[in-house]
């Protein structure tokens, strides 16, 4: 069951998979803001997110 977290930007609901790993990126379906998963606690139905870093010049392959 995905865990719902409210988007800080627009108030939309972000569905965080309950098997998400820390560091994984999720995005708000309404505004597209990206968040990085800090932790997931499926038992408590809680997930902690922080704003993801923005793409930088040296990012890539």
């Amino acid at each position, binding site marked *: 069951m995905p865990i719902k977290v409210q988007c800080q930007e627009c108030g939309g609901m972000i569905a965080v998979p309950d098997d998400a*790993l*820390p*560091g*994984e*990126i999720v995005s708000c379906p309404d505004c597209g803001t990206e968040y*990085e*998963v800090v932790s997931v606690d499926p038992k408590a139905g809680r997930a902690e997110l922080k704003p*993801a*870093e923005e793409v*930088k*010049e*040296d*990012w*890539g*392959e």
Partner: protein
Amino acid sequence: MANSLSILTDRLRWEEKALYTAALNMGLSASIVDVKSSSIDISDESTLPAEVRDSDVVLQRCVSHYRGLYYTAVLERFGRRVINSFMTSLMTGNKLLTSLELVKRGIPTPRTYVSFSDESAVEFMERHGYPMVVKPVVGSWGRMVTRVDDRDDANTLVEFRRMLQDPTYQVYYLQEYVRRPPRDLRAVVVGDDVVAAEYRYQPPDDWRTNIARGGRAEPVSLKGHDREIVLKAAEAVGGGVLGVDAMETEDGLLVHEVNGGVEFHGVTHATGVDVATKIIEYARSVAKR
């Protein structure tokens, strides 16, 4: 016996999850380490993250070139085995260094030039003739890769680059524009093997073929001379886990890029090859050496 591995990341993508799963499936002890939360005393190995300290081999998979490069420098200083090595990351993170090595070894590659100021770049393009391709020396996903068709384009590009104030933009990496089919070749090299390859077709609204730009992929089996060229290109940058990009011309393949942080989601999907498992097998063999 190599049985523990850590994966360094700064943004967990499909690839890093696939590597982690593949390692666990092979019975290895695996961990994912976010380099963003690291601060290391470079004279004290005990300040490395515990998972890294306990690893037989480290897979460096940062999306940021500089983060990955410098983290690797620190780990190699402590005698750790890192894939890719510092030298490979340095070479592949810089298109000019890659080209210099390809040319030195006689590996077919587009004719490449370098200019060291805005003025000399424009003056050179005028003299050489258009179109020309201008790329940042550091950068990926086709970002800021520009086809310059005339003097107006050249002046506009120079103006943009000046405004970006990135010191590497003073160095102009210029390449002949190669007339090729509307696709290029991406081969994934792991150690001394080409494990998967695909044609990448350019999207209808772009001349670049990067999958990050919306190109589509088709599997291809590389044989004979083409395979040899790809493997030589990988060797030229120091070897490891690499994405070699080449264009087809009447005279054969031209290698135009070697990527050190290869993304393999697309090629896995296109070819059905389990690239992640191939990489983990290679990492295990490197750790045993």
